[in-house]
């Protein structure tokens, strides 16, 4: 049988990093014990990011990493999908330009949402783009607020020139409620960690590891690295029980990013694949009401298609109030402009959704002009109905004009926008996001899929594409 495994991998972690010291300082009056965890940073999405937008970024990067491989199936795995009843995977599929023939599935309900879907795709030998993404809410002053981070990771699995061969895996289901979140509670209710370690991780994980090794026809000593979303103090007893106490645990990325939730095992795997040498055997663990254990072997092909490094993080910030505001935990007075009714005319959206979700504009077959939006009459030659679909999602533009607008409403003032001229032709007045100051006319920008507006009244959010400055490109 042909090799099945990972054909491409990529992660997306938002650039913003909040200093844990800033969080601890803000809560010192109420819970001084938090200072014990006040090290490093946690990632957090800009105001216009959510599980869908982060997933789109990871999916796009993964498709690029996998080169010409086209998935037949997309699985979106998350415990924080923005929509309870609207296929989040469908939004991701359309934004990632995967076409209408792709099968889609939303996987949810547990931190194993990603690893279980991954194992399912591998064992079912289906060419699947698995994209996992989470932005977990946490109560202010909770340990979770300190420990969680936002992020997404994607792997494209299937047969072919794999960068990591799937050798086998196993799962166990055990309804251990180490934490939970319900529709009513919104944030996690977490139980005592030592209980989770002693009765949970230490007892549930070793059996699955043994089964996975058996499925892969390997001994414990064949494993070079373990990727598990736990700090060593929680994981070590389980590894010891499974005979893997000599095997190093991969960096859980907690210090800089935090625990991203469902995507975390995949995020760690992506991180390892950036460096792992061919032949390295990696055990990936997912945990949540049971366990998934998957064994991979890195191949020579990894040298050709390593996952791209994640987006460069910004310098850690101390702006805890901004973080709270982005998360909706405090409501600032934004003035009257924030009262604008952002109702979406869904019939218009449906008619124009390729333009809005896929950033599909027009390319005039008569004169060659690219333009957005696609229109009946070409902006250059005026010919009617000569435009074919053309997506600007991967286009590079240059800032032609811009302003930092302090009058306009945005959850992250100032609202920055300007005219962007696309390299292939076409212009669009668009929002410039992830603004950190210092843009100028001529600055190169790339396109990202983000939340455009939130409709509080109807509980809806709409998405569109925005420009972000390209690192190192003036």
């Amino acid at each position, binding site marked *: 049988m042909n090799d099945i495994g990972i054909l491409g991998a990529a992660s997306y972690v938002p650039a913003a990093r909040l200093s844990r010291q800033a969080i601890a300082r803000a809560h010192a009056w109420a819970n001084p014990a938090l200072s014990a965890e006040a090290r490093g940073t946690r990632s957090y999405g800009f105001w216009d990011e959510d599980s869908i937008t982060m997933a789109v970024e990871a999916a796009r990067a993964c498709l690029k990493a996998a080169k010409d491989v086209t998935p037949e199936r997309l699985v979106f795995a998350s415990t924080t999908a923005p929509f309870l009843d609207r296929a989040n995977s469908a939004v991701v599929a359309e934004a990632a330009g995967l076409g209408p023939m792709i099968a889609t599935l939303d996987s949810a309900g547990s931190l194993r949402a990603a690893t279980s879907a991954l194992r399912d795709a591998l064992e079912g030998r289906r060419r699947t783009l698995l994209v996992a993404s989470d932005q977990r809410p946490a109560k202010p002053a909770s340990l979770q607020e300190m420990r969680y981070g936002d992020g997404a990771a994607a792997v494209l699995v299937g047969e072919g020139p794999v960068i990591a061969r799937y050798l086998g895996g196993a799962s166990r289901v055990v309804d251990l409620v180490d934490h939970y979140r319900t529709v009513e509670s919104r944030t996690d209710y977490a139980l005592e960690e030592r209980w989770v370690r002693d009765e949970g991780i230490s007892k549930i994980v070793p059996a699955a590891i043994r089964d996975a090794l058996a499925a892969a026809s390997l001994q414990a000593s064949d494993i070079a690295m373990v990727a598990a979303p736990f700090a060593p103090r929680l994981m070590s007893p389980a590894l010891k029980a499974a005979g893997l106490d000599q095997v190093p645990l991969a960096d859980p990325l907690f210090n800089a990013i935090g625990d991203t939730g469902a995507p975390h095992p995949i995020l760690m795997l992506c991180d390892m694949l950036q460096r792992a040498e061919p032949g390295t055997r990696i055990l990936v663990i997912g945990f949540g009401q049971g366990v998934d254990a998957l064994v991979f072997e890195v191949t020579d092909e990894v040298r050709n298609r390593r996952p791209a490094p994640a987006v460069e993080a910004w310098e850690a910030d101390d702006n805890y109030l901004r973080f709270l505001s982005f998360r909706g935990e405090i409501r600032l007075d934004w003035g009257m402009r924030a009262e604008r009714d*952002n109702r979406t005319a869904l019939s218009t959206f449906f008619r124009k959704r390729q333009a809005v979700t896929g950033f599909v504009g027009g390319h005039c077959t008569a004169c060659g002009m690219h333009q957005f939006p696609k229109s009946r009459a070409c902006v250059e030659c005026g010919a009617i109905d000569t435009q074919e679909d053309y997506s600007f999602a991967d286009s590079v533009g240059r800032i032609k004009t811009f302003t*930092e607008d302090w009058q*306009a409403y945005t959850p992250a003032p100032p609202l920055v926008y300007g005219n962007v001229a696309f390299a292939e032709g076409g212009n669009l007045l668009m929002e410039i996001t992830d603004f950190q100051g210092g843009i100028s006319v001529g600055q190169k920008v790339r396109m990202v899929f983000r939340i455009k507006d939130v409709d509080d009244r109807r509980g809806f959010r709409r998405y569109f594409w925005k420009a972000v400055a390209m690192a190192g490109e003036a």
Partner: protein
Amino acid sequence: MAKGIRDKVAIIGMGCSRFGERWDCGYDDLMVEAYQEAIEDAGIDKSEIDAAWLGVFFDEQNTGKSALPLSMTLRLPNIPVTRVENLCATGTEALRGAVYAVAAGAVDVALAMGVEKLKDTGYSGLPERTKGTFEDLYLPNNTAPGAFAQLAAAYAAKHGVDMGDLKRAMAHVSWKSHQNGSLNPKAHLRSKPTMEQILQAPMIASPLGVYDCCGVSDGAACAIVTTPERARAMGKKYDLVTIKALQLAPSNGVEMSHNSWDGSYTITTPMAARRAYEEAGISDPLEELDLIEVHDCFSITELVVMEDLFLSERGQAWKDVLNGKFDRDGVVPCQIDGGLKCFGHPIGASGLRMVYEIYLQVQGRAGERQLKNPRLGLTHNLGGIPNRNIAAITIVGLMD
């Protein structure tokens, strides 16, 4: 071949309300204030008006749609009334309707009224509004200052102008208008801020500070027009003022979708200006125009419009402004009444308010701010934003 509008229609009466935060007034009070002045100036009876045009922009919020607000407020005798709206060119559009009707010979006397009651919206600046069901899905939620502020970034980049120098030139635009507006009893803002105050004002949309932005006001302005023959027969005591040109150039979307536009100027103003100069028989605008009232919604708009109207060379307006070329004692005095800067911009009223100033000036009726013997003036509106707009130009002067 049509010959244009030049000298085919005369203005026989104009009125303008005091502009400002008219908490004491509704749109009806503002219209009556402008109308009473205009009808008295025209010296005719209401029953002599054959048709009317009403310019209102933010209709949903305060004034209401259709012909009715004007017809009912003035208790017009059931004559035809048309409501028009063309963004910030709305007032000029009302005048255009009235003037064209007279020129066509369809009516003898027509009235144009522009009004806007902004201060009941509750906003500082213009109110938020939807762009339409599709555009709301992809265009930024920009404000007016933000849309125009972008001209500055592009202008500085294109012409290699230091942003500090450009800021000073923009500040001079506002400084000059405040100096002018301080003399005008109908202006909303009559203070005279210093260059320092202007330059150090809080930022609204970079690089526009508070003083780079025009005021937000309530106001109305009104014109009554007829044929020059009828006007002459009325034996009026002031010189006859006629329309020399009325031109309109709306965007067709090039600035929005085509990257040939660099964002440092408006495409439409030069188009409207060329046609207007030709219609008015003007070959050298700098020489022939005695005063201008342009759309200074923001200081940078006025600055680039000087080039778009061919009154400054490309890339030179910032220097011309700093050299006082458009000051009261400059080559072409600009915003002699204080402009949008001091009057604010009750959208439907602005175009007619500008024409009102030219009308008074060429007749020598501008009081303390009267220029010396002006004969010909130009008004310019820019409806919309630099990315897509409607340029409207009116040239008004003494009958040849």
